[in-house]
């Protein structure tokens, strides 16, 4: 009874249905599992990084990697604060999200990783897991989620561990962009780009899911969903499910695309901004922005979606240029600054000015 996106998630490399070349590459990696390099998987949201990563582990260790459990680990900071981190693990691997700890992620890297790295796996046997059923390899894999939000300190702490304990530990890091990963880490990893599925690949997947779920759908609608999801397969599948639920399992080409709640709010705000360029409108926008931010929509996404929505509604090229310029200015400030609301508000005020003249 899980969501389709989870129900139809491929569990082995063979079953992965898009970007076939990458599958072959990963398959060849898994066949030489003894010297699996550290991996850095990067690519946009919903392109299947984690899925691929798990499939790779499955190919190396066997399906035991899907026997997951979550542990709560406690750490003590130098200032004696107790921190707790949830660690997802299987017998063969650990999965951590150091960014959960905010600024204390260095502790996680230093303590947890080292601890894991210093313990040698004892009961390893030669041959792959499927043959012997024992421990496949003497190393354990550690998946680091959201590696791009690791602080510099944490990344620096990672450097030496990666080399020194490479006998016992292999890292697989997942991130959206590589820009915030420091160069020493990049040079120690095999960089694997995981691209988004192309539209046609997305459509194939959607069609397959529809068939299995018994949803009648017109072909046109898949195109629409693929377009709106913007290469995010997860999004595409979830949208499909939402629409199917909404339309009693039969999708027509005219059915409206269901957008997530937050996106609807942003689009509405964009329209409002262009219609009513006044200080009063800015006040209303502020409360909308606060609402979005409070409900965990990242400021970056708000700015991006807002800017694109504005561009769509503006015809004049010079205006488009001006909006883009504002958006990039304030995007930079978002990154450099502390309080997102200031910059979002500044962006809207500026755009109102630019478009009203």
């Amino acid at each position, binding site marked *: *009874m899980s*969501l389709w*996106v*989870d129900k139809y998630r491929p569990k082995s490399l063979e079953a992965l249905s898009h970007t076939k070349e990458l599958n072959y590459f990963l398959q060849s990696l898994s066949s030489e599992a003894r010297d699996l390099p550290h991996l850095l998987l990067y690519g946009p*949201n*919903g392109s299947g990084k*984690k899925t691929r990563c*798990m499939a790779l582990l499955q190919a190396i260790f*066997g*399906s*035991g990697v*899907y*026997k*997951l*459990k*979550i*542990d*709560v680990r*406690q*750490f003590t900071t130098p200032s004696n604060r107790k921190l707790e981190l*949830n*660690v997802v*693990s299987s*017998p063969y691997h650990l999965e951590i999200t150091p960014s959960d700890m905010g600024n204390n992620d260095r502790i996680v890297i230093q303590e947890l990783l080292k601890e*894991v790295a210093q*313990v040698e*796996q*004892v009961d390893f046997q030669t041959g792959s*897991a499927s043959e012997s*059923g*024992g421990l496949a390899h003497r190393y*354990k894999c550690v998946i680091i989620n959201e590696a791009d939000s690791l602080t510099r300190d944490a990344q620096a702490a990672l450097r030496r561990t990666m080399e020194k304990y490479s006998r016992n530990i292999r890292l697989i890091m997942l991130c959206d962009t590589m820009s915030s990963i420091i160069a020493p880490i990049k040079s120690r990893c095999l960089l694997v780009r995981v691209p988004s599925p192309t539209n046609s690949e997305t459509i194939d997947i959607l069609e397959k899911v529809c068939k299995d779920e018994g949803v009648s759908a017109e072909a046109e609608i898949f195109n629409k969903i693929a377009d709106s999801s913007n290469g995010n397969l*997860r*999004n595409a599948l*979830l949208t499909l499910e*939402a629409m199917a639920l*909404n339309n009693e399992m039969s999708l027509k080409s005219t059915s409206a695309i269901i957008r*997530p*709640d*937050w996106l*609807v709010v942003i689009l*509405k705000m964009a329209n409002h901004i262009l219609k009513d360029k*006044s*200080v009063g409108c800015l006040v209303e926008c*502020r409360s909308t922005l606060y609402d979005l*931010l*409070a*409900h*965990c929509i*990242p400021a970056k*996404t708000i700015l991006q979606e807002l800017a694109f929505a504005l561009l769509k509604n503006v015809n004049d090229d010079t205006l488009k240029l001006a909006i883009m310029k504002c958006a990039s200015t*304030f995007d930079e400030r978002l990154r*450099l*600054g*502390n309080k997102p*609301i200031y*910059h979002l508000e*500044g962006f809207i*005020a500026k755009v*109102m000015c630019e478009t009203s003249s």
Partner: protein
Amino acid sequence: MVDIREFFGKGQETGRPNSKSSNASTKRESARPTIRNNSALNPIEINDLDEDTNCNSNMAKNEQTGEADLLEIKLPNQASSKRVSTMETSSKAQQQAAPSVKQKKEPPQRASKSKKASVNEAISADEILSQIPSVDLSAVHVKENVTFDFRGKSQAGNDAESAADEADFPEGRPNCLLGLTIVFTGLLPTLERGAAEAIAKRYGARVTKSISSKTSVVVLGDEAGPKKLEKIKQLGIKAIDEDGFRQLITGMPAEGGAGTAAEKARQKLKDQEDQAQRDAAEMVRKEAEELKKLDTSRAAGADVNEIDRLREEHKLWTVKYAPTNLNQICGNKTSVNKLKNWLSNWSSYQKQGFKQPGRDGLGVYRAAMLYGPPGIGKTTAAHLVAKELGYDVLEQNASDVRSKSLLNAGVKNALDNTSVVGFFKQRVDRTANGQNFVIVMDEVDGMSGGDRGGVGQLAQFCRKTSMPMILICNERNLPKMRPFDRVCLDIQFRRPDANSIKARLMTIAVREKFRLDPNVVEKLVQSTRGDIRQIINLLSTVTTTTKQIDHDNAYDIALSWEKNVALKPFDIAHKLFEGRNYTESGAKSFPLYKKMELYFDDFDFAPLMVQENYLNTKPTVLKPGQTHLEAVAEAADSISEGDLVERKIRSSEQLWSLLPFHAIMSSVRPASRVAGQMAGRINFTSWLGQNSKMGKYYRILQELQYHTRLSTSTDKLGFRMDYMPTLKRRLLDPLVKEGADGISEVIRIMDQYYLSKDDWDSIMEFMIGPDKTDSILKKIPTAVKSGFTRKYNAAMHPVSIYKTGSTTAVGGKGPSSTPDFEDIVDADDDVPPADDENESKDDEIDFKKDKLIKQGKPKAKKRAAGATKKVPAKKRKT
């Protein structure tokens, strides 16, 4: 050591030059020519003065008492009681003589400047005014090319010394505007409004803002309001221009001349002065009595040494002149009376068990809370009221540690004590019984870190105390003081105004023999914000160097003693957004550095307050052609840039030297763009609330993500942005569409994702905009909702994380990565984790380790043990 005699000598310098006594050895004195007198001569001289009725008898009297003091200090060993007593008698004689003399006496101020006062004093203000041409009300534009630098004048001080100033603005006779009520309106050609008002006040006029029938003259400038002009016509008030004002000042005789108004004002002044004299005399008498007592007790052989006597002499002024009875408390009469009423009726309230509020509603309180700014006599009032009503005071203040346990040990005992005492003394006269206590807890808001639990405990005492408690604090509205809400009688003390302080200060002035111009008291009060204690300290310090405080030096004194009060965030925002401060003239009086100082008053809140309120102004400072929106955009831009600076300051770089820059970028510059009038109230910053709300939601989201982690593959934000909208549908729609029939489906999905009922609720909270679930949730019948909850609680549910505390599975120390051989056996399972095959093996381990099962109800346990297949997912959590 400075000879005290010198001070007294200096005090009379102007009034009685011949009586100056000095000690040439002191530095200050050596600068001027002095006449040396043998101190022994003084008594004789005083006697001479007694006969001289033309002389200022007050001064003489002061002189005499001063000398008495002096002699005591100077010759402590010789000072026999006999000598003191002679002094006393002569001073008493003077007191009797004084009233008859006072009718004719001139105020001391006049004596120094009376050289010029040769004008006929019989001229009344009306006569002078009639000589001055009225302004034609229809054409109120009078331009003049007289340059006048008031600032220079006011700072240069003594007008007799600077001839240039005299030429610029005419020197009037002292108090020449006495009895006049003047209104300034419009822009005066050369004088600033404030300066003009200062001049008028300086010469004793009353300056008001609005025109009424009592107004004696209006000084009209350019661009006077039409309403005011109308009122002038209507009431037929004399209107003059700045030139006329000059003429008025030059023309008027000293002391306001003849005329009933001036006479009245003079009378009032005189009354004030008389009162001051009387009070001072009273004080002197008491002091002398004290001394006498000391002396006699010493004569009687008691162990009174020199130190005791000196201690009497060397009291701080604030102690020396502290009010000794309730009438002497400046201002706050109603508050003091309220306190007195309450305390005097306390025992009768107690008899009624604090049940009946009574007519004034005081009857239900066992404790009273006095609050108000420092230095206005809260503690004094509490003590005096207690004293007057015959209570003994048990005081605890911030110098005592007042933690919960110590309060329990100390104060609580006292509480119990009195209850027993009350039992014994039911019929005994209360004043005769010294066992009446009142607890005064001073500086309650000073209870802090060290006084753990003190505030709560104190509030507890307030509820059940069997003896009156008076609590004193400065800030009543702090969250810390919340426990005292409704358990205490709140009595607010306000800053007394200048008038109520004036009398007291004049008394001190007379007593300490310096000259204090009544007209400058207001200024001092203003600069210390009504803090009486500080004014007295100020006088005490200032008079060590000068014996005269009047218009000439009051400005400097007030400036140097100005109380630096850190403004509250609201006041900061209010001042920053005031359009007046950004005009050309406004910027002069409130320059950039002062605006920055506003930021530094509270640099955490100033930027936030600016950001919160910059959209709510009606700007008056727009550049030509600029729209409101453009101004707002500029401000927003600046705020955004200011945030970058703040990041530099607060991040690991810690560049605190950038604070001034941040002040400009985050507060002053944005405010300067949109300054004007506030369109509504100033709001408190909402950022803090929103930020903590965001923190809360992120925590919930993280929790959700952990729970669902085993079934999904995404990070927090992915879960929020992609999963949640669809998941919400799956979790909510069945309930909406099918009602009770949908419940089991929803629970199945929840189990699949390891969601608890709380998680279900929080997912519903996450939706915003049109998908907001509030209204939909309301539509679901209550029966369905409660059915859902019941059904969910009835069954066991898989949990993804289970905090096992110290069990073996989890924990800080034991490496959880230790190979788990039980699991390894399953390594060759099918790709999707099969449920049934390894169930049996896992279950055995489960029951040993799994707290979940222990925690569940026995019934649930049985079922879990019997039919493990019903809870397939449980296995995964091992």
